[in-house]
């Protein structure tokens, strides 16, 4: 009997959580189109989510591009296909690694920060205080973060793409003996609009996931410091998993024709 009870509890919990998240998402998305719009808060969040994530995203993109070039060279040289290194690095970075690596890094940085901030506001009754001051907490706290993340992530990924390709260029010219101008030429010839734009679409979706789960976990944190800690961990774990799952679905959608 206990086995069934346990399965039932887990199943009910899963559906309850899914339902709650869906309602929260619906509330947040309708909040985007209803006035007032807090322009200043959106700008402030774009600074925090986008601009301050640049160093960490740039560094990871640089090293990822470099390591990608090294490994592709290793594999390609077995078949004498070294000349494909630039274009494979380009495709790998723009289609997959740029958005995914940036998404995961920003999830760790931003989803955690959002969940901790909003979670602390929840347990210190600051969110209730917003309601008593005629301010809708979803519109004031969630909507600016959602908008800022959806706008910032594609910009961040565009920059990460360039830095990643540059990382591949540095590795190829410095350790693999590629000629710099030939490498750049191959890269430019391989550059297509679809590769880059699909990565940017992914980035916008990842931005939405990061802000939404950061806010959702913060809003639902309970208790004191421990509750906020749990909310922060949950925000990072759930947003990372959802980013990877969404990446699979989007790749399926965008590239299988």
């Amino acid at each position, binding site marked *: 009997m206990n086995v069934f009870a346990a399965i039932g509890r887990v199943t009910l919990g899963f559906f309850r959580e899914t339902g709650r998240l869906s309602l929260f998402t619906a509330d947040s998305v309708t909040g985007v189109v209803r006035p007032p719009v807090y322009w200043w808060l959106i700008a402030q969040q774009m600074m925090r989510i986008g601009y301050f994530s640049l160093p960490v995203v740039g560094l990871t993109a640089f090293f990822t591009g470099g390591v990608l070039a090294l490994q592709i060279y290793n594999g390609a040289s077995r078949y004498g296909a070294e000349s494909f290194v630039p274009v494979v690095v380009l495709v790998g970075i723009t289609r997959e690694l740029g958005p995914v690596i940036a998404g995961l890094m920003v999830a760790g940085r931003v989803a955690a920060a959002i969940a901790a901030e909003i979670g602390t*506001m929840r347990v*210190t*009754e*600051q969110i*209730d*205080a917003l*309601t*008593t*001051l*005629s*301010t809708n907490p979803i519109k*004031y706290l969630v909507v600016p973060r959602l908008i800022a993340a959806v706008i910032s992530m594609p910009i961040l990924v565009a920059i990460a793409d360039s830095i990643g390709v540059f990382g591949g260029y540095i590795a190829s010219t410095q350790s693999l003996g590629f000629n710099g101008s030939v490498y750049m030429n191959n890269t430019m010839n391989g550059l297509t609009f679809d590769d880059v734009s699909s990565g940017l679409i992914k980035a916008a979706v990842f931005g939405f996931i990061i802000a939404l789960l950061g806010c959702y976990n913060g809003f639902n944190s309970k208790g004191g410091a421990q509750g906020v800690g749990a909310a922060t961990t949950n925000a990072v774990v759930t947003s990372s998993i959802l980013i990877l799952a969404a990446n699979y679905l989007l790749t399926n959608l965008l590239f299988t024709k």
Partner: protein
Amino acid sequence: MPAPGSVPKVELRGVKKRFGDKVVLDGLDLVLQPGHSLVVIGGSGTGKSVMIKCVLGILRPDAGQIFVDGQELTRLSGRARDEVLKKFAMLFQGAALFDSLPVWENVAFGLIQGRGVARAKAKDIAIQKLAKVGLGADVAMLSPAELSGGMQKRVGLARAIAADPDIIFFDEPTTGLDPIMADVINDLIISTVKDLGVTTLSITHDMVSARKISDHIAMLYKGKIVWAGPTAEIDHSDNPFVDQFIHGSAEGPIKMEVRA
């Protein structure tokens, strides 16, 4: 003073609220007359906070009705509901100041965000309201984290009175303060309330504070009001629950739910 038989400022009828299996409010009835200062007393976990959050519109009751100036809040929605909720202000237990904003913006928040007052004008009003709670203009630029607990309560009170509310709610106004600061806050509440002529609803388990700031007291136990009357009659209530609570005795009808 209100004429007898006038419309109550706030009235709760049969309000019920449960969280999962736990029944918190179990058909609560309460009447708050205009101009009165009502304190609801009760032990921890008896549903005082939940009651106040239902009235404030933060929580939705599962059943029952809440009236504000004769309007049924529980049936309103959208803008009409927002208009009713604008009559309320609340001083939270931990002051609940927004730590990302300086003190003056905290006080002016409801004016700027909720009522569209221009920032410069709202700042002037905020400094006036800070003066009313005994804080100088120099405090206005500080961050809430730089203030002591008593000063945070004062700022919270200034924020509550900033938009000239009809009804102010106080959640444990003296909890966490030393006895002297508690008395200072009590005096401040009394003078502010007198000054503004507002109706107040407070919840507390501090009997000293309850006697001081109220003219009427109601006692909440297990999600229901078990006694209500003027503060002067609290010592002659002949109610075993009230007697046990005001004397702070472990013996009596109230059984503490102590979990191992």
